[in-house]
């Protein structure tokens, strides 16, 4: 098989990365980063990791890109000076980076043989649980504890962002995400696309049990639809004191924890499921997690409250 496409992709990724770091303007740098994210999702497909490719495209390029673009808009148009650093410092940093790169490249070029793998263990779990997507099996059964903690990290991150609200505004709504000038095409897109996005998001979540897809990817699609509606100014971001919002944020982790503790008396320990109930439990947990992810990602992009509660 020819290496040419891979080589071209690698070159494009590196060029976009250099652009991202070297661009003068802040916004150009963010756009470079989004391009890197999209190219990386192609690389993930070449690495036979379709689940990761979907996540990278949705979260790595899409959600992070939107977050950074908003930050650019808030920070004003111009990059400050200060790019002119001492040449000696640049050379020193260059040497440091080269050393790191050479060390990593050595590991890549002379890897351990045979390659360590946990694939057989994961495959054995697949049979027990009856799901067809090995990545979902790892995320929700074999290494469910990691996923649970990651959900807690998401909730903590949201609490961290909300905690930056100035005191008088506590409980209010985040600043409007509206684009500066209301415009027909954006409104139209925000009216037509979200229902389609909902069907696709639910499809990704549901289908993730057996084929590529899952809670992260589906949840991000749902979050993106919500953000699109807020950007087109069809709906305002909700006030962060709303109980419904807060319940949705913790719904996923709570359902996950309940399922985990239930393992003590319906199976043999924390986060273990009885074989015949495993699939329904996992699907239930996935649905709750996806809803929470959608809400958390949306609110993370929206940022801390910027308006006093009404």
């Amino acid at each position, binding site marked *: 098989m020819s290496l040419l496409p891979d080589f071209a992709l690698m070159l494009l990724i590196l060029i976009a990365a250099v652009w991202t770091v070297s661009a003068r303007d802040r916004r150009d740098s963010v756009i470079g980063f989004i391009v890197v994210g999209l190219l990386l999702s192609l690389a993930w497909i070449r690495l036979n990791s379709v689940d990761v490719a979907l996540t990278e495209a949705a979260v790595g390029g899409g959600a992070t890109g939107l977050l950074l673009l908003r930050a650019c808009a808030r920070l004003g148009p111009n990059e400050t000076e200060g790019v002119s650093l001492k040449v000696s410092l640049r050379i020193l940093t260059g040497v440091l980076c080269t050393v790191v790169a050479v060390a990593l490249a050595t590991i890549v070029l002379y890897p351990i043989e045979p390659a360590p793998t946990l694939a057989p263990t994961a495959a054995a779990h697949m049979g027990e649980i009856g799901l067809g997507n090995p990545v979902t099996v790892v995320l929700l059964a074999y290494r469910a504890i990691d996923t649970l903690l990651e959900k807690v990290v998401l909730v903590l991150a949201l609490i961290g962002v909300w905690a930056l609200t100035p005191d008088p505004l506590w409980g209010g709504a985040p600043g409007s995400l509206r684009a500066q*000038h209301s*415009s*027909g*095409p*954006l409104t*139209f*897109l925000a009216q*037509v*696309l979200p229902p389609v996005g909902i069907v696709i998001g639910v499809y990704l979540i549901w289908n993730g049990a057996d084929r590529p897809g899952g809670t992260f990817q589906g949840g991000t699609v749902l979050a993106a639809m919500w953000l699109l509606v807020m950007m087109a100014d069809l709906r305002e971001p909700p006030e962060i004191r709303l109980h419904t919002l807060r319940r949705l944020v913790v719904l996923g982790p709570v359902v996950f924890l309940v399922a985990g503790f239930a393992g003590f008396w319906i199976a043999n320990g924390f986060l273990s499921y009885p074989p015949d109930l495993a699939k329904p439990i996992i699907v239930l947990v996935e649905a709750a997690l996806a809803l929470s992810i959608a809400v958390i990602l949306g609110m993370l992009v929206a940022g801390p409250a910027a308006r006093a509660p009404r």
Partner: protein
Amino acid sequence: MSLMADTLTIAAVSAGLFFFLAGTVGLLRFPDTLTRLHALTKADNLGFGLIVLGLLPQSPDVASGLKLVVVWLLVQLAGASASQLIAQFASKGGPSA
């Protein structure tokens, strides 16, 4: 049968690539942002459509083919929306608005 399908695929995908190339040439040669948008939206849209058309005979069942058509429709919507938004943004500094 399979030969005909393959021929159609090769022809349509090549034509699609040609239009992507033409769109890129337009992007480089056309004089201003709005004109370049024409090149991007129209030529690339057609290029993408032809690639989808070329892949249709290769899809294993009707559902996969329809999926490709759905993707095509979504890209049309995205292209139409994005080009108008960029046009609106680009013309802010330009004549009238």
